[in-house]
């Protein structure tokens, strides 16, 4: 029983520390000096280099989505709704979550391992010793890059998915590109774009904060580096799905 109590206290303590860490990152992000060059470098590492993974995955999701929904809709004679189902499914539901999970796998692990490696090899202390605010330089820049990159990557995944779905439909039902795009985007309004985009900003913040926290506070040498890397993926994915549930409720409340 005391084991459960200890684990609960430890978990709550970690959640509290993570919250303080995230708030500190927000506070430091609006205080000069701003590490513009490093944010751009991190955008390249986090955003640009995730592009191929996100595009290929999005394309595959689009193909699968078109084929799966196509099979279901054919039963009801509603094949004409397939483009809309693909676009709505990608933009409002699957796109943000899938991008979040993909990025958390690729970037979360990378950030966690990189910062943990820097911590255990005293590189973070070395930064401090040459009068560089390591928190600002390493943490704030990575979180900012995640927040900026996630919406862009999500759009990339969504449009790749549309391309995949369109290709599948062109082969399966001989639908023209013009017809598919008209049917896919015709019924969509700003309210279908904005809420999921806001969602991805939050996902970016979660992925960046969790992985930076676990990397920046790592200890115990190589074991600590491995643990930070694994936990970054696990915790950021879990929090991402949890926040999806909460954000979905908020979005329904605000935009319905």
């Amino acid at each position, binding site marked *: 029983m005391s084991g459960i109590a200890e684990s609960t206290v430890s978990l709550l303590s970690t959640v509290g520390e993570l919250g303080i860490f995230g708030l500190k990152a927000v506070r430091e992000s609006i205080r000069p000096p701003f590490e513009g060059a490093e944010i751009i470098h991190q955008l390249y590492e986090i955003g640009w280099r995730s592009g191929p993974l996100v595009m290929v995955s999005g394309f595959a999701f689009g193909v699968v989505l078109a084929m799966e929904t196509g099979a279901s809709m054919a039963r009801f004679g509603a094949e004409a709704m397939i483009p809309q189902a693909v676009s709505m499914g990608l933009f409002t539901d699957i796109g943000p979550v899938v991008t979040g999970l993909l990025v958390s796998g690729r970037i979360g692990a990378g950030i966690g391992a990189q910062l943990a*490696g820097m911590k255990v*090899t*005293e*590189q973070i*202390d*070395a*930064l*401090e*010793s*040459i*009068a*560089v*605010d390591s928190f600002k330089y390493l943490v704030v820049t990575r979180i900012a890059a995640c927040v900026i990159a996630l919406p862009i990557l999500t759009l990339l995944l969504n449009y790749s998915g549309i391309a995949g779905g369109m290709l599948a439909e062109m082969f399966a039902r001989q639908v023209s590109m013009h017809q598919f795009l008209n049917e896919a985007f015709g019924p969509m309004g700003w309210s279908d774009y904005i809420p999921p985009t806001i969602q991805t900003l939050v996902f970016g913040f979660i992925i960046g904060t969790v992985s930076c926290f676990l990397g920046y506070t790592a200890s115990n040498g190589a074991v600590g580096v491995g643990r930070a890397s694994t936990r970054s993926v696990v915790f950021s994915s879990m929090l991402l799905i949890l926040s999806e549930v909460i954000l979905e409720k908020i979005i329904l409340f605000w935009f319905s």
Partner: protein
Amino acid sequence: MSENNGAPVVRFEHVFKSFDEKKVLADVCFQIAAGQSFCLLGRSGAGKSVTLRLMIRLLTPDRGAVFVKGKNIAEANSQTLNDLRRHMGFLFQDAALFDSLSVAENVAFPLRRHTRKSEKEIRDVVREKLRHVELEKEENSMPAQLSGGMRKRAGLARALALDPEILLVDEPSSGLDRITASEIYGLLRGLKEKKKVTIVMVTHDPAGARGFADRFAVLDHGAIVACGTVDEVENSQNSLVRELAEGSET
């Protein structure tokens, strides 16, 4: 104990430091004069590296004050702290080079952050620092491609990039053979003699430091048990102090 020749640039006043239940430093007091070479000895876990880290506020004391250039670094605001750190260099035990940057980029890093030098001027300074530590041929190498001794020298070049007044050195000879270690000590001796840099060094190898260290202090169980010139420490009544001061040569 010997008297200091110049004004103290580092002063510890009744410093206490613990990690959880473990007391590392208890009521530590000493001071280091400008231009002096100060060597801190002690057994493993005696608190030597902790003392060094307190000087540049990589750690803060639980009680007491650490003055650097007359300012209490433990209570300094971020502006003052950064100003003080710009006058200090730190050579870490394993060099702590940024592994995503080349040797030249590591040395250039502090210059890019804290000076308004042009890229050409930075390149010139980097080459000069790397020449000083005899690493000019390795400027494009990545840290992972360097040997232990080369990494130390690259770390020294980075620590010297901003021409610090105070150089903190953590175990300069650890993991190195005697010849490579003596090369590092030779570089430190040159810094003391030519550039008048104040050197604070933690070491297990006092024999290497004997040629240029002005004062030795011995830490034991969190307290300074001896402090003075080489002769004073070597002739101490305390057998541990004598053993540590005589080092590996005995």
